[in-house]
């Protein structure tokens, strides 16, 4: 009961802050007479948003970005989990590949976007690969450090009970590593949205990032802001979904 009221109060206060920010924006546009092609008023952006939504444009572009995000994030997360597990199972593999992984991890992955577009064209492919790549590393790091933190006593227990590698992973090691894996997943969601936008900005015929570049070419700030609004909503939703799953899965904490 109290936690519900607390959540309500928190929601209300964030709403007040949001309304304040919109008011400052609106006031600044009027006070400093900012031209609409540089910064339109909030109601103009909102009108544009509604117009595009009604036309189905927004849905088409948002769906494209969302499917890139979904596919890329899932592929990157699964790959990160599997490779992390392999590194833990075969320490030699981990030792051999960790310098290479570190190198790839520190290199700005966004920089290879042009290369991916060159290889894979303007379609969904290069964006999915880029998103998968940026999601892969945080999940890999989270998995490796989570599995390394399993206390030796539990490994003894697994040995004593003759657990097979699969059962040991699923019933002992994975649950221990989950908090760290989820930390990786949360980092991955934010990076995934950035990667989607970059991929679409560089070369695309659809997607919210494409809308951004169209807006820029046409001096249409309302379009750019509407696309940004949609992108932050997507990013926020992904983050919240991961957090909701985490709260459920890690309820025992």
């Amino acid at each position, binding site marked *: 009961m109290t936690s519900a009221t607390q959540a309500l109060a928190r929601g209300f206060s964030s709403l007040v802050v949001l309304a304040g920010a919109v008011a400052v924006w609106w006031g600044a546009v009027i006070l400093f007479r900012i031209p609409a092609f540089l910064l339109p008023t909030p109601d103009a952006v909102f009108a544009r948003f509604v117009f595009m939504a009604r036309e189905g444009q927004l849905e088409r572009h948002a769906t494209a970005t969302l499917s890139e995000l979904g596919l890329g994030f899932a592929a990157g997360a699964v790959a990160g989990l599997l490779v992390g597990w392999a590194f833990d199972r075969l320490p030699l593999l981990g030792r051999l590949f960790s310098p290479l992984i570190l190198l790839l991890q520190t290199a700005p992955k966004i920089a290879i976007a042009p290369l991916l577009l060159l290889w894979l064209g303007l379609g969904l492919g290069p964006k999915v690969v880029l998103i998968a790549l940026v999601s892969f590393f945080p999940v890999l790091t989270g998995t490796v450090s989570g599995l390394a933190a399993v206390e030796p006593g*539990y490994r*003894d227990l697994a040995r*004593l009970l*003759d*657990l097979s590698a699969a059962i040991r992973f699923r019933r002992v090691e994975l649950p221990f590593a989950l908090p760290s894996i989820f930390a990786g997943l949360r980092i991955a969601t934010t990076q995934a949205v950035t990667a989607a936008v970059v991929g679409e900005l560089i070369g695309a015929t659809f997607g919210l990032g494409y809308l951004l570049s169209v807006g820029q070419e046409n001096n249409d700030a309302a379009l750019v802001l509407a696309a940004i609004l949609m992108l932050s909503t997507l990013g926020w939703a992904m983050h919240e979904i991961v957090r909701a799953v985490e709260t459920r899965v890690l309820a025992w904490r």
Partner: protein
Amino acid sequence: MIRIEGVSKTFSGPGGPVEALRPVDLTILSGSFTSIIGPSGCGKSTLLRIVAGLETASTGRIANEGEQGRPGFVFQEPVLLPWLTARENVRFPLDTSGVPRAEGDRRTDELLAMIGLSSFAQALPRTLSGGMRQRVAIARALSYDPALLLMDEPFGALDLLTRDRLNDELMAIWTATRKTIVLVTHSVEEAAYLSDTVVVMSARPGAIKRIHTVDLERPRGERTKLDPRFHQLMADLRRDLA
């Protein structure tokens, strides 16, 4: 009966090989309660882990006649899975070895009743006290009904009162099940109170120094603790350890 013959252990350390355990010969009778005491680093835990199959011996062999199958093992820490309830933790070895659900449930509930935690069956480990957690760990080790129960300083981290109570509970479990129990401990009182045989080890490299046969009558209880022979035994054990 378990015959330990010439079992030794040498670890490879940074400065060359380290001899943790000199060749040990020891016979543990079926259904007996044996304690191993010794100073830190005397290899008593290593010996226990070798018997459990958690470490491999560098030399020697262990002949196991009658205590086949997975031994039960209780660690110094409870090593419970924190996301499972007390009941699920006790049932864990049964779940992972394909014991039918109904059979596992029946066995688990019996054990929870035996350790007096039936009303805490649905509690998560973090909500249990240290003594309760170690009780759950003991029940888990007994879940698959092993003939041999190995315990590595299981009560070392508990306060004295809890420790005394758990000693009595362990003795009751042993009396009821007649399992072969090997207990590694730091406490001369615990060893003298519980055991049929107390093995004293010396440190670095570990070796057996003396084996005491305890002739105190059973059942043991508060009266045992007043018995002069009990105090004589503790004094002997302390002298051996010094």
